[in-house]
């Protein structure tokens, strides 16, 4: 063959060679070795295990929340990069650049809407995902540490949403971040009350660390921008990697190991029984005999394509939801930030409104005390509840289900009663104008509700002698409190934080 002919031949075969080189095997597997390699060389199966339990594919167990979170993050990264092309993080420029994204960037408004709704979806899903993992007991051995990693992801998710809130530089952003920065400043309430602010002022330090100044301005904007587009996404991605890796290495999604396994699916056939002492094909992919390994593939199906379809469904569901919301509802963009005209009322982002409601009684308890108690408490759950029973079962069984409903009722009623009381009668300052602030820091609706919830949880512990049920009781109470306080802060609080039945009753100002 002459070089010229060879060249022409190669040119002719290039499309086929290109296609074959893209897939590492290059062609349909023919031998067992090739079949196993088609698994080992598959990118998808490097992220996933080769076989996935049927239980993990059940929608009613996970609601796909972890996948929806991942998908929202991907959507946010994609739309966020598009927005970064046009966004200018300067106090004089930011607002106009967002307006230009709205008005002249092709589909810019749509992209920003998608970004906004995906962000809300992600925050919502991260709470739901945590509740799902908790109620199915999935934090138990060997998954304790992954629960802690998940808490880190929760914090980073809220941080990403909060830092992104400032970037449009409109009135909504400006005053929400002003409130947020004042929450960071809330240790000042304690240091003031005991008179040591002059020597020790952690509140001021936190606020200045966050804003780079004593007020929300250019320094704050650039800090939030760097956190939002670089620091937090990288941190979140790294932690996500750890989270996924641990999910795989800790044995996949949790399930009730005591139940008889459903049939496994090998090739095109469902294989009913796999005795653990029987030898079987390697990874149930390769034909022929292999030595026995410690776990049988009972109840599993091939990840490719079954898990792939589940993941595709979750990704496309997330994309479809954000597209539809983004098409019909514009992301808010108010007047340009104006320090001279406060929003009335100034409200933090919705997921912090429960805290803002508590801050309205005691800045320290709402802003530092309660969040610390909640985060530390959540982190300790898997180390305090070591009972291995009830993993993979919603609420751990009928007793847990009962405890859940009772705790939900108790949690809702007690926080509602407390709010009705404070709205109608005020709190200590209204009755004893001269009372020292330290007394209010110790006794305020936030601490009262925590005490009520703790008392309930202890009572459940005494009655049932089960740490798991007591944890269910406490978690459910806090969930109920979070929902009620968030609703209170977002819907029922109007100008200067008074009670209104509906925003339409707010006096126009």
């Amino acid at each position, binding site marked *: 063959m002459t070089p010229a002919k060879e060249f022409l031949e190669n040119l002719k075969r290039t499309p086929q060679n290109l296609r074959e080189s893209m897939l590492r095997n290059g062609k349909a597997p023919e031998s067992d070795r090739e079949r196993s390699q088609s698994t080992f060389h598959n990118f998808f199966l490097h992220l996933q295990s080769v076989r996935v339990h049927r239980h993990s594919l059940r929608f009613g167990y996970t609601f796909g929340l972890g996948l929806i979170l991942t998908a929202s993050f991907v959507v946010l990264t994609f739309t966020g990069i598009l927005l970064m092309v046009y966004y200018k993080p300067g106090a004089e420029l930011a607002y*106009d650049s967002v307006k230009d994204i709205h008005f*002249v960037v092709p*589909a810019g408004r749509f992209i920003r809407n998608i970004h906004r709704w995906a962000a809300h979806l992600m925050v919502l899903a991260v709470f739901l995902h945590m509740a799902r993992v908790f109620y199915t007991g999935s934090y138990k051995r060997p998954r304790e540490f992954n629960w802690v990693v998940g808490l880190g992801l929760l914090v980073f998710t809220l941080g990403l949403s909060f830092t992104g809130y400032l970037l449009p530089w409109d009135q909504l952003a400006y005053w929400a971040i002003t409130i947020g920065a004042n929450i960071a400043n809330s240790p000042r309430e304690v240091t003031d009350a005991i008179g040591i602010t002059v020597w020790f002022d952690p509140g001021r330090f936190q606020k200045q660390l966050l804003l780079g100044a004593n007020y929300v301005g250019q320094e704050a904007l650039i800090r939030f921008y760097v956190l939002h587009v670089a620091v937090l996404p990288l941190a979140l991605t790294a932690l996500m990697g750890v989270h996924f890796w641990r999910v795989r290495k800790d044995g996949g999604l949790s399930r009730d190991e005591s139940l008889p396994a459903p049939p496994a699916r090998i090739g095109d056939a*469902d294989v009913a029984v796999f005795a653990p002492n029987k030898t079987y094909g390697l990874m149930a992919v390769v034909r022929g005999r292999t030595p026995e390994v410690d776990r049988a593939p009972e109840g599993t199906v091939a990840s490719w394509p079954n898990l792939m379809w589940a993941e595709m469904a979750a990704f496309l569901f997330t994309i*479809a939801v954000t597209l539809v919301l983004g098409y019909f509802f514009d992301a808010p963009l108010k007047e340009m930030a104006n320090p001279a005209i406060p929003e009335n009322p100034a409200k933090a982002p919705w997921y912090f409104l429960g805290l803002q409601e508590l801050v309205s009684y005691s800045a320290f308890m709402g802003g530092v005390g309660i969040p610390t108690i909640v985060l530390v408490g959540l982190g300790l759950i898997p180390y305090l509840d070591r009972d291995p029973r009830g993993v993979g079962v919603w609420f751990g069984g009928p007793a847990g289900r009962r405890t859940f409903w009772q705790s939900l009722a108790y949690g809702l009623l007690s926080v509602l009663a407390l709010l009705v009381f404070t709205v109608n009668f005020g709190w200590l300052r209204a009755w004893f104008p001269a009372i020292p602030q330290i007394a209010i820091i110790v006794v305020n609706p936030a601490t009262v509700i925590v005490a009520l919830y703790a008392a309930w949880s202890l009572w459940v512990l005494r009655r049932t002698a089960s740490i798991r049920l007591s944890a269910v009781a406490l978690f459910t109470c806090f969930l109920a409190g979070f929902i009620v306080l968030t609703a209170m802060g977002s819907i029922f609080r109007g100008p200067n934080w008074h009670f209104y039945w509906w925003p339409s009753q707010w006096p126009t*100002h």
Partner: protein
Amino acid sequence: MPADPARSYKWVTVVCSLVSLLFLIAAAVRENISADWRAHQADFRAILEAKSKDAAGRAAARRLPIEIRQVTVPALHAVDRCVSCHLGIDDPRMADQPNPHRTHPKRLLAIHRVEKFGCTVCHQGQGAALSFQEAKAEDYFWDYPLLPAALTEATCASCHNPRALPAGSADKLVLGMALFEQKGCNACHKLDGKGGPLGPALNNVGLKTKHQFVRANLKGSQTTWNWLAEHFRDPAGIVAGSLMPSPALSQPQVEALTIFMLSLRARDLPAEYLAPDKIDEQYARLHPPAPDGAALFHRYCAACHDTGLYSRWDKKFQRFVPGIRNAAFIRTEDDECLGENIREGRPGTRMPGWGPKAGGLSEAEVAALVAYLRTSAPAMPLPPAPAHGDAHRGGTLFFQECAGCHGVDGKGLIAPALANPVFQRAATDAFIAQTVRLGRENTPMPAFGRAGFSETDIGDLLAFIRGWQPPARSQQP
């Protein structure tokens, strides 16, 4: 063949893919193809083609690109995309076309070139927007919505002295300025540092946003101009408890005053945008002409004192406002005393001080006002006051005869406060004695001398009244 474990997920994937695809296409169409400005530009192209007289013109019209157009004016921080729909705005051939293609009325753009001024410096509104609703920006999150055409004159004052403009240019604004002076608005509202403190200062009212007005009682359009107009019609109906009198204005007057209010805006414009007459106006403000007492009285005093010839019952204040141009009063007061009253006002009453540190009037203006008041009657040498007598007896007399109007504590009910430090400082014994003897014509103050008060009674009263004198002031003879 056993059931496919991923069957439901396949369905979800397919359905969600279709929904996503559908909305992506819908968004692409909505954002790119069905925008209003594209349709307007296509219409404009057709109009241009129809108006062309020759083939070359028609070909040029057909080649007119359909694209976003904008005027960028860095000096005014303006990027105005209004011209994306108003393509014919500076094309005189479009005078007969409907909006948005029509030429700007009055050929104003010949002297205000679009490239130099843009649109929003005069019209307000959201210049960056590309749809009419968003450009108009009423009931929208935008600080300065598009001014209605009838009110656009307001912004002329940013660069012009309205009174120097040719007739027919800013007539309503000039009328508003005149009404502001005629109606005595300055008596309660400060403007450029001059005026009374009862109402809010009016500097830069035109730059306020709707969020800076209390709109709890505002019906209709939630704009600053609607607030101002409704407020001129019924002040207390918009601001509960407002002391502002209803000025009884006609509709054109309400509009003129609204325009004047909207024109109050100190915009930091580059000098090349200011008309020479505006610079003259600013110079004149630094070098005011000799003050005119009558005009000053009208501007700063008449809203409460009216003509000042008689004392007036004020329903809102619930007391008599003294008739300060009343000859009987002017006759008894010397110039120094009048000047002191104007400069210091009457603390504790609605009468504010008007001196340079309070109401902002210069010493020359206070002197001009005193001279104007003096035109009512020359100062009369007062007969001397009797010596101070028995304060206790004077007190009994005061409670019987005076306290009904002047208040038991002397702080004034419907009549002036006598326990007032400025009154105590400014009024001489001779003045008080003479007022008690002869009363005050055209006011409710009776002549007690004719009702049987002896000089001894008056001396006792004086002793009692001077008991309210602030300490550490030497008594005048």
